[in-house]
């Protein structure tokens, strides 16, 4: 049985506390009036800010900011109302990106776990308890994301402009989509997705623990069937989740492979976290039976799925770049203009770095190498989510400051606390999994 080390527990509490303080400061310092917003911008970027203020005076404030936000970058009427909502969105977006990122890790691990179960993989049963520990975060993480979405529906923030009836009233495209993209149906869908994922996670965990105590393989077989069924449900709902929770922040823009693209991101982040937690537990003397071939396999997955992610990222980018249709290409124009560093930085961290570092077979077996690469890959995929959400919600007012770092610290701390608490609940090595012998002798 694993015991949660006090040092790690304390660390997770400190991270949560610091993150919470940073987030509160972020929310407190968000402007509540147009004047404050203008003052903030004027202070933050002199030279540019002056122009903003002048333009604002002449434009007046006759339009509601909702209509403005919907039309995004193209309009500059009531420019400062827009600026205000961007600055108000910033702490919310920082909260949402971090909450979603850590939730997505748990969901990616759940998909990986279900694949191992459905494929009846022989190499991985030794790692099942680690995966089950990580997916435990699905419950609090999912509830937090749901609450943030609920608060958005209640107009506590303006991340999802299509939730504003004022905006929809002036937007024919959104009216056309309203049958699908309306707050009630949105919440119902979110509840169905989360309900299904959490149900599978809890039930599969129950069967997995029951298998340890039973004297036949019936639990194992049941788990196999549920996992196969879950994968079908997951592939559909994950794709719809990505349209709902991420793509709809840009309600006019759409991409048909967006679901896959988000999936690749969550899959590689999840596998990376499995590898990191495994290496950590091994370094503390647990998981004696896990050998470096298991680490090698996980690192191979990190390498392969990183390239898969790049493939999808590029497939999405190239078609839009080549076709150059205005309504599609605005998505990338915003990112090229205002998000150069996070956008290209993410490509280096998620593609070039793992490609060069993990290419050599021997390096995939070196524990500290896997950890260092994992940290870079995780930051890269945080940036990926950042680039998906921020351009639509805060525009060119992005910055990685207190609320963003606070979000990472808070949810990172919560994630570590929850995952390692879950790991203490059951023996780290499954006793009666029929493939456990194969997994123990796994050797490459």
């Amino acid at each position: 049985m694993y015991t949660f080390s006090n040092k790690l527990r304390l660390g997770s509490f400190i991270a949560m506390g610091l993150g919470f303080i940073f987030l509160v400061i972020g929310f407190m310092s968000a402007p509540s009036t147009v004047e404050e917003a203008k003052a903030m911008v004027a202070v933050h970027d002199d030279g540019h800010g002056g122009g903003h203020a002048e333009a604002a005076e002449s434009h007046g404030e006759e339009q509601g900011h909702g209509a403005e936000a919907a039309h995004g970058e193209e309009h500059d009427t009531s420019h400062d109302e827009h600026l205000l909502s961007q600055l108000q969105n910033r702490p919310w977006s920082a909260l949402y990106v971090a909450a979603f990122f850590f939730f997505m890790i748990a969901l990616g691990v759940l998909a990986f776990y279900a694949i191992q179960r459905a494929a009846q993989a022989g190499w991985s049963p030794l790692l099942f308890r680690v995966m089950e520990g990580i997916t435990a975060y699905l419950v609090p993480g999912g509830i937090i994301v749901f609450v943030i979405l609920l608060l958005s529906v209640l107009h506590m923030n303006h991340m999802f402009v299509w939730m504003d009836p004022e905006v929809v009233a002036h937007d024919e495209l959104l009216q056309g989509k309203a049958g699908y993209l309306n707050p009630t149906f949105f919440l119902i869908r979110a509840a169905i997705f989360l309900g299904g994922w959490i149900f599978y996670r809890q039930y599969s965990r129950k069967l997995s623990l029951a298998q340890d105590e039973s004297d036949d393989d019936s639990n194992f077989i049941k788990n196999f069937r549920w996992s196969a069924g879950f994968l079908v449900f997951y592939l559909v709902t994950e794709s719809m989740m990505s349209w709902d929770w991420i793509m709809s922040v840009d309600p006019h823009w759409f991409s048909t492979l967006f679901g896959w693209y988000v999936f690749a991101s969550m899959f590689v982040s999840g596998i990376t976290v499995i590898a990191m937690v495994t290496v950590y537990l091994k370094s503390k003397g647990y998981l004696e039976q896990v050998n470096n071939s298991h680490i090698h396999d996980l690192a191979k997955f990190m390498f392969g799925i990183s390239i898969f992610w790049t493939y999808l990222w590029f497939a999405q980018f190239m078609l839009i770049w080549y076709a150059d249709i205005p309504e599609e290409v605005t998505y990338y124009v915003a990112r090229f203009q205002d998000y150069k560093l996070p956008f290209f930085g993410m490509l280096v961290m998620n593609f070039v770095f793992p490609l060069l570092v993990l290419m050599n077979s021997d390096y995939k077996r070196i524990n500290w190498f896997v950890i260092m690469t994992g940290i870079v890959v995780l930051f890269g995929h945080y940036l990926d989510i950042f680039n998906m959400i921020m351009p639509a919600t805060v525009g060119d007012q992005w910055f990685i400051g207190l609320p963003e770092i606070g979000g990472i610290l808070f949810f990172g701390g919560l994630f570590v606390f929850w995952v390692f608490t879950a790991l203490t609940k059951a023996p780290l090595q499954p006793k009666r999994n029929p493939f456990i012998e194969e997994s123990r002798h796994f050797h490459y």
Partner: protein
Amino acid sequence: MASKVIQALYNDDDVLMHAVKKVRAEHHHIEEVYTPFPVHGLDKAMGLADTRIAITSFLYGCLGLTVAVVMMNFIMIEDWPQDIGGKPSFSYLENMPAFVPIMFELTVFFAAHLMVITFYLRSRMWPFKKAENPDKRTTDDHFLMELGVHDNENELADLLWETGAVEVKVTEKES
């Protein structure tokens, strides 16, 4: 020059693996093992040096990438610039996304094909080469281990029978 070798046939890869380990533990030099399919971990058990084919693969991939860049630059930018979809090809860098699939494919193409050719040459296999395997059954369901004989024929034969060989024979081999 002809040399004397002893050949042991096995009909199971697990038995073969154990035999290889045992023979190596007795400090005999295994000259070659012939198998109908790749046996996982046999190279390590035989103590063969790690393959360097991965390094050649990386180099061939770099070569393929270079060829793709140079080729597309010549075809699309220098020799015959066209205006495709409102993107006049005046600069390689600005049109680069369109060339990425070609860069990717040629990298894979060069790495894969040249690696296979390298592998064949390194294994000294080329068209019309006389087959080297001493027993046709190694292409079907038998495994053959070959050891050099240095005046210890009987000792070796006993050892090989002990390891579960289904047949042991001593022959002269041209080298």
